[in-house]
């Protein structure tokens, strides 16, 4: 329901039990260890450091193997069951994993694949170069010629070929150009000529943008060489396939690897916490925080290991702030997601979670206002909770959305939102006619599209109520925990004033029988504010003007209230997009033959789109109203989270 009480504690014990005690601390997961390494010369000894390095090495291996093997894992359905074990089973299994062997095999096969792939890339490139020369009648052995004559293998642009031939013959008659192959673009040719003219001929080639081919020096014919290369590529491909098969076999160990990964994660967290612990030759000391209610049970567990320890509560120093744990009932704990999104309250502040919960779901529902969407959302989230195993964080979010679905359904029914349909479009037995002659869905009370002003007033009223609640929360909290006089004069006066305004407005609107009471209440409230808000000023004039100026605070509250008009806007947006989808559906339905199919597709797709985009918007904007408009009234936030040394897992679900 609130922020749990935590105590600062100091723990001293003999070094000989250090390992076992740390293990126990991690197992119970109730000790938030503070860093006191600055006060000690030794914090982590050589043994622990080598243990840690060993653990880190194994962890890196496990991570590597998981990364390599994951693509080769056989998929087990869309939502595979996660690995579920008790802590003891996890430790037991983790010890039996032969990580060295698996890592070695993974590395071998992975290397083989990479080597084969790289080789094939090079070979394929070579094939491309050789392709134009495959009809060459001679081998490539003396492809550069001898002292007397030179030969050049060259690719010449088809358009330039005639010119090259002419130019070469002009230079020397003792030359020959032999076409090896030609396609539309390039002609492959061998030019043989007297060594003497090498420079001139090469210049001709450069001038005509002919490219010398870089061919391998071999005894065989090009045709045979190509054949050999292709065979090599083929055998490499076979090698890749074999290695992949091996990896697929190894992928059966993935579950074991994941178990080991999580075990090593614990191990490292535990070993790393040695860095925060102070130790001397014979003893070690831990300082930190524990929830008050967990201390006795924790002591009992430690006594099973050894009696030689000292666990004392100490008073924190002035500038130390306790880490924060927020505890809420099963019903409201999904809303902790929102509180954590903003950041935790300070240790001495209120936990806003239970207070924001009801406002949040109502706002969320008002932003969607469609019973059809509400039911869809409820069914989807309910099924997900029932049939899919989800992590803690996600589970909370899904539960939150399930609450949202329920409230959206209720508010959707009251507002007559059913997939953006109008009451005229559905069978008559589902509707009724109101006193003013409007056609409504059964149970519908208001039509937001024809009567948006009523919804606007509702939104603003909800906003006013929430801000009032916020101020009263601050008042009560300050009154209980702080200086009572300051609480009354600072916050109490505003609570009085704002309640007065509400009474006045309700009176003026005719909800209450008279506005007279409210009027005098507001005047009294204003006078009170003028008298009290300037009390810190030194002279009487200063007191008066600061008091008068404080009334300006009203503008701030009013702008906060106006911010709630977004509830109407977002609700309208959902309704109108739904309406637009239905209009398009009707248009599509008019197309002959395939009209009904198109209409069905557009109906489903359009409404799903509307649901998704507006759920996102509703969530964010309802959240923002809490963070910006509500929280600012009673909390600063910025609390440090209570992060005990505990057994965290990434892949494995721990069964209790």
């Amino acid at each position, binding site marked *: 329901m609130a922020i749990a009480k935590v105590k600062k504690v100091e723990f001293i014990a003999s070094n000989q039990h250090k390992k076992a005690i740390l293990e126990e601390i991690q197992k119970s997961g109730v000790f938030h260890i503070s860093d006191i390494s600055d006060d000690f010369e030794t914090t982590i000894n050589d043994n622990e450091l080598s243990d840690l390095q060993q653990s880190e090495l194994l962890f890196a291996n496990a991570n590597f193997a998981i990364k390599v093997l994951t693509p080769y894992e056989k998929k087990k359905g869309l939502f595979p069951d996660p690995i579920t074990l008790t802590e003891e089973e996890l430790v037991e299994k983790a010890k039996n994993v032969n990580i060295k062997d698996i890592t070695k095999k993974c590395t071998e096969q992975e290397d083989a694949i990479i080597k084969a792939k790289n080789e094939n890339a090079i070979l394929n490139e070579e094939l491309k170069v050789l392709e134009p020369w495959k009809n060459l009648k001679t081998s490539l052995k003396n492809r550069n010629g001898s002292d007397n004559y030179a030969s050049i293998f060259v690719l010449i642009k088809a358009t330039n070929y005639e010119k090259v031939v002419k130019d070469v013959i002009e230079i020397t008659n003792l030359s020959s150009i032999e076409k090896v192959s030609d396609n539309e673009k390039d002609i492959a040719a061998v030019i043989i000529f007297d060594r003497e003219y090498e420079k001139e001929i090469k210049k001709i080639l450069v001038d005509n943008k002919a490219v010398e081919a870089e061919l391998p020096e071999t005894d065989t014919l090009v045709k045979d060489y190509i054949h050999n290369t292709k065979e090599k590529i083929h055998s490499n491909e076979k090698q890749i396939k074999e290695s992949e098969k091996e990896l697929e076999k190894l992928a059966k160990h993935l579950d074991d690897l994941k178990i080991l990964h999580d075990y090593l994660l614990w191990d490292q967290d535990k070993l790393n916490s040695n860095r925060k612990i102070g130790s001397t030759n014979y003893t070690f000391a831990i300082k930190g925080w524990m929830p008050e209610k967990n201390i006795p049970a924790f002591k009992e567990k430690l006594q099973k290991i050894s009696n030689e320890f000292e666990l004392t509560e100490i008073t924190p120093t002035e500038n130390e702030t306790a880490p924060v744990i927020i505890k809420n009932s099963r019903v409201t704990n999904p809303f902790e997601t929102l509180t954590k999104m*903003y950041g935790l309250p300070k240790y001495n502040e209120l936990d806003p979670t239970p207070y924001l919960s009801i406002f949040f779901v109502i706002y969320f529902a008002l932003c969607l206002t469609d019973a059809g969407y509400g039911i869809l959302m409820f069914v989807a989230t309910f099924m997900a909770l029932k049939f899919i195993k989800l992590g803690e964080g996600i589970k909370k979010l899904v539960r939150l959305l399930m609450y949202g679905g329920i409230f959206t359904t209720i508010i959707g029914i009251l507002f007559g939102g059913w997939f953006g349909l109008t009451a005229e479009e559905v069978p008559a037995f589902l509707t009724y006619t109101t006193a003013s002659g409007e056609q409504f869905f059964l149970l519908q009370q208001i039509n937001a599209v024809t009567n*948006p002003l009523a919804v606007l007033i509702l939104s603003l009223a909800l906003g006013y109520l929430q801000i009032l609640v916020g101020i009263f929360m601050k008042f009560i909290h300050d009154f209980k925990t702080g200086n009572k006089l300051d609480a009354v004069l600072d916050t109490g006066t505003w609570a009085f004033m704002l309640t007065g305004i509400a009474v006045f407005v309700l009176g003026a609107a005719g909800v209450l029988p008279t506005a007279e009471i409210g009027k005098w209440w507001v005047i009294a409230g204003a006078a009170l504010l003028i008298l009290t808000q300037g009390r810190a000023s030194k002279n009487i004039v200063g007191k008066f003007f600061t008091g008068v100026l404080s009334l300006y605070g009203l503008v701030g509250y009013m702008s906060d209230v106006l911010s709630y*008009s977004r509830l109407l806007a977002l609700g309208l*947006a959902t309704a109108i997009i739904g*309406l637009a989808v239905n*209009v398009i559906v009707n248009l599509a339905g008019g197309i002959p033959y395939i009209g009904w199919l198109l209409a069905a597709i557009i109906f489903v797709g359009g409404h799903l789109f509307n649901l998704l985009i507006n759920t996102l918007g509703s969530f*964010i904007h309802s959240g*923002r109203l809490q*963070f910006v408009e509500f929280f600012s009234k009673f909390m600063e936030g910025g609390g440090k989270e209570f992060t005990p040394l505990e057994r965290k897992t990434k892949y494995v679900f721990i069964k209790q």
Partner: protein
Amino acid sequence: MTEFFAEMGGLALAIAGASIAVILGGIGSSVGVGLAGQAGAGVVTEQPEKFGKVLVLEALPGTQGIYGFLVGFLILLVTGILTGEPKDLSIAQGWQLFFACFPAGLACLLSGIHQGKVTAGGMNMVAKDESNMGKAMVLSAMVETYAVLGFLVSALLVFFIKL
């Protein structure tokens, strides 16, 4: 001038308004989603597992285009263009609908672009630490407020202008 508008008629003015709302909102969101998407592509290159979160963030500046579209749609609806029997609007009514489109159009244009910039910044937050997702979304939603308000006024105007 008067002759020109008389020739044009009220309906054309209303259509011009609808076009402006849709176009300005569309530009705002296109630029905004574009900015966010570029930043997001960078994040996904390095950390492909964050694609889902990046996609959600990228969608945030997309709502301005929807608000603009909705105002345009409302105009089509109230003027009867959608039902195939357009109402005979006076020039004055045409102007009223025309101006009713500006709050949504202009607010969506600018807020879409700026929301895109804030969201692009939010992408960096998510790149560094996934748990910043909520904070990034809220920061981005702050900019959207003014598009929502613009849309609200435009929608109310279109509803309540007597035709």
